[in-house]
Structure formats: C-alpha cells, structure tokens
C-alpha cells in the first residue's frame, strides 16, 4: 500500500523493506534497525488488534545520519559492519524499550500468518494496516496520493 504515498520535496530519502513471513518478523527486523540507530516514529503495537487478528504490520522508522549504509537491495538484517559507508549510531532507548515490549506481546500470542487468512480478509487487513499508518506517514512528510 505504500505506493499510494509520494515523498514531499523536502522529505529525506526513504527506504522500504518487505519482510517475508509474519508480523513478528517485521518487529524483529525493526528491532535490528533500532540497534543500528533507527528510531520508531510510532508505537509498534496496534490499537485494538492483537497478533492473531491482523496478519500485517508496517513499522515506520527514521534515522538522522546522512548515510544509513542501506539500499533497496539490502536486507536490513544483514551484518552492516561490512559496509564501510554505514554510520553507527547508539540505539534510542525509548524505541528499544517499546519494540522489546511489543515483541513480548507477539511472542505470547498466536501470530497470524498471511497464508492462513482468506483472500477477502487479507484485502481488508492490508487496507486497515495502511489506514493505521496514514498519520505516521503524513507526519513524516509523505502525502496520500
């Protein structure tokens, strides 16, 4: 659904990663990025959906360093120490605390994998994931197309 958003002129470079698997894997990838200096823009848990009620999870993170060392081709979970351009930043404690707490919630519940979900529900769930990301994306300088 991110294709419906376009970056404003003054928006810093944005990188979008898709995670294979379930929402737990998205949270794990976000945690790894936080350890590389990225910060959460929004709370990593939904309001009013539990892990077994929504197969999708989008997470928006920001990083202030000029060169994140990442590209569209790279998986964020790769060892970035091999990339000489990567600027290491200390993890943001608040983001770290929130993502670890969210991981605890997902590990304690049944996590719904998209492959378990009927097509009609998948479509609705992806739209709602998009809708719940609308405000963070807008505040990050992206505008709905």
């Amino acid at each position, binding site marked *: 659904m991110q294709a419906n958003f376009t970056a404003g002129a003054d928006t810093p470079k944005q990188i979008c990663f898709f995670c294979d698997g379930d929402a737990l894997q998205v949270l794990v990838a976000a945690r790894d990025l936080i350890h590389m200096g990225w910060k*959460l*823009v*929004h*709370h*990593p*848990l*939904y*309001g*009013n*959906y*539990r892990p*077994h*009620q*929504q197969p999708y999870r989008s997470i928006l993170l920001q990083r202030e360093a000029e060169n994140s060392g990442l590209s569209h081709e790279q998986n964020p979970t790769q060892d970035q120490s091999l990339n000489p351009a990567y600027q290491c930043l200390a993890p943001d404690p*608040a983001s770290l605390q*929130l993502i670890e*707490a*969210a991981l*605890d*919630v997902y590990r*304690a519940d*049944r996590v719904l994998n998209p492959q*378990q979900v*009927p097509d*009609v*529900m998948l479509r*609705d*769930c992806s*739209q*709602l994931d998009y*809708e*719940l*990301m*609308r*405000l*963070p994306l807008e*505040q990050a300088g992206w505008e709905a197309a």
Partner: protein
Amino acid sequence: MNLELHKVAVRQLAFGAKTGVSNGVLTVNKEELKALLLKDDRLAAVEFDLAHPGDSTRIMPVKDAIEPRCKLEGQGEVFPGFIGPVESVGSGKTLVLEGMAVLTTGRLVAPQEGIVDMTGPGAPYTPFSQTCNLVVVLTPREDIKLHHAEETCRMAGLKTAHYLASQCKAAKADHTESYDFPPLTQAMQAYPGLPKVAYVYMLQSQGLLHDTWVYGVDAKRTLPTLISPTETMDGAIISGNCVSACDKNNTYVHLNNPIIKALYKRHGKEINFVGVVITNENVTLADKQRSSSYAIKLAEMLGVDAAVISEEGFGNPDADLVLNCVKAEKAGIKTVLVTDEYAGANGASQSLADSCQEGNAVVTGGNANETIVLPPMAKVIGDIGQADVIAGGFFGSKRPDGSLEVEIQAILAATNELGFSKIGAYTI
C-alpha cells in the same frame, strides 16, 4: 451550564403506521425511516429488525449503539457536527428515549465486531441485552470507498436515533435528571475542604474504524481540551470505533458515561468535580508525548488534587494511559486509572502492554481473554459468518450447530473501560 434530561421510558418496540411513543411502547414507521436513511445514496439497502430482552436472538456484528435523543430547549441540536449544527450543546432540555438502543449492523471489513445475545450465557456480558433494540441492518454500495462506507453507517445510526426522539417530543417524561456545570470561578470556590477532581477522558483516535469525533472533528486532529460533562450527554462525542467490541466506547456509552455519573454522584459530598479533559490516543510517539503533556497541563491549570483517567481500547493506547498517569503523578495529581485486561485465558499473563510504578490505583473492566461458548439462537440478525473473523473470535469459532466459542472481547461492552457493564466484582 444546566442540562435537564427528560427521560421517556421505552419498554417495548413495534412497527406501525406512525412513529411515536405511548404507554412505554415505541412504534416505528419503518418505511418513513427507511426513506430518510436512503436519502444517502451511498447506501444500497436498509432493513430493520427488533430485539427485546429475553428473545432468542443474536445480533452481530454490531457497529455502534446509540440512545435516541433530541433537544427540546436550548442551543443547538444533539450530535453537533453531524445532526446538529456546530453550535455548543449541553444546556437546556433534552429528550431521551430510555430503555432502548439503536444498534447498527452491516459488513464494513473483516475482522469486525461485536456480538449482542439477548438471552443465554452471553447476555449478562452486554448491557445491550437489557435494552429494547431497533437493529438497523445497513448495506453500503459496493463501489464506494471504505471511508465513505464507515461514514454512511455512522450517520445512519445517528439519524435514526435523532428521528425516533424527534417524533416523541410531545411525550411526557417519566422522570427528569438535572446536571449543573458552573463556571470555573464558581467551581473553584465551591466545597472548600473537598479534593478537586478532574476526569481525563481518553478517546480512541488511531485511524479509520478506530476513530472518535468531537463536534464533528476527528479527535486525532485535536489537542486535548476541556469539555462540559453536559456536552457529552448531548452527543458532542461520537464513536467511529468499530474494532474490539468489548472495550470500545460506542456512542450510547459516551452519552451515558458512568464515570461522569459517578463523579456527579460524589460531587459536593466526597469530592469537588471541577472538569473533564478529553484527550486522544494517536499512534505516533510525538503525538502521545504532546497529548499527554497537554492533557495533564490542563489538569494542573485546573488545580486539581486528583484525576480519574479512563482508557479506550488496548495495545498502543496502554502507552497513553501510562504517560498520562506518570505525568499527572509527577505533577502532584493523584490518579485512578480505569482500563481492562488481556491477561490470557487463565488470567496469569501481564494485563497491559505498558505499566508504571505510579499506577497504583487501577480499576479493571475485566479480562477480555476469557472464553465463552454462546449457544445457538433461534434468530440471528446480521451475519453469523462474521464470527470466524470477528475481533476476539478465531478461525473455527463457529460450530456446526450454530454455537460460537469466542473470547468475551467479541461481546459488545463486555469489558468496557468506562465501567458500562452489568457484571462487577467487589472486595469483601
């Protein structure tokens, strides 16, 4: 501000030629009402049904519940920004059809909430098993966007509630309730010696199907602000929240907020109830910080000694609850939190996604993870197929015999975080 609620008792609903109330029976001209609702061309179809306490009837998925109200005297009209103009409400006289509810149902998305059983083991979990219910079954046009489908269903409920009350303006009230909300200069001088108490009223504001509206404004686009409790009784706050039936605050609950009623009951005796601060539950961390700081700043400006803080929903709003609590306590304002729990089927897991040491006075609406088997009913209004994807249900929850095995999360208002419930527990 003074508001009189003129309450007309409704003990039975019927369809008939003329809409009106007589001897506790509300008759509904459904053709007239259907024509009113179908003026919105985004609706493909509208049907009506009735459900009374004790009926072998299941209603699902319920989107919103609304109590019929209209203004008799005073500025504006109920549900300002939607039915009434954007004029301040909360003064004068308002007619209430008490004992009944308008329940809207229809498919918007999957998963979707919630269940109302009018009898059987599920009935005590929802206060709406005790009301006479006019069920509005809505079918939005398939070619409209989800935002418009949600809006048209929300509006249909408000229009129905206002229509019913407006047709009964000549009815004599069975009883009248009066609520005062004096200017702050008077409120601050009143009852010296009693602790000043504010209510911090958190509103769900996460996005589509998770929204609340104040005077027609999307709550996520607002800063926290003060509101008179009497304004809430005239429908200044409207629910657009369709997810997690057990702990969403539907419009009926906003109109009849039990925390506000409890604060009024103790006003002048145990406390001096001086104001209500509404605040949102946005998803971004910046908004959470901004709104919690601003809401508690307003409470400080009121000079209160204590605050009751109620949450709506669960998950990331738990962070807003904790931020409000910590900031209030650090400002010297004692807090009581009202929430519910997701503590696992055995109740042993951590109840909230966030916590704080300052949160040492908490009231719970119950554990939403409790499971229940709801036996088959003779009649189902709505779509029982939704049980498989209803929030709180899970795949396989619909059994071949028509019974449902669900967590009580799927039942409307089962763990309501304003205490709008028929089930409670007492420490003895």
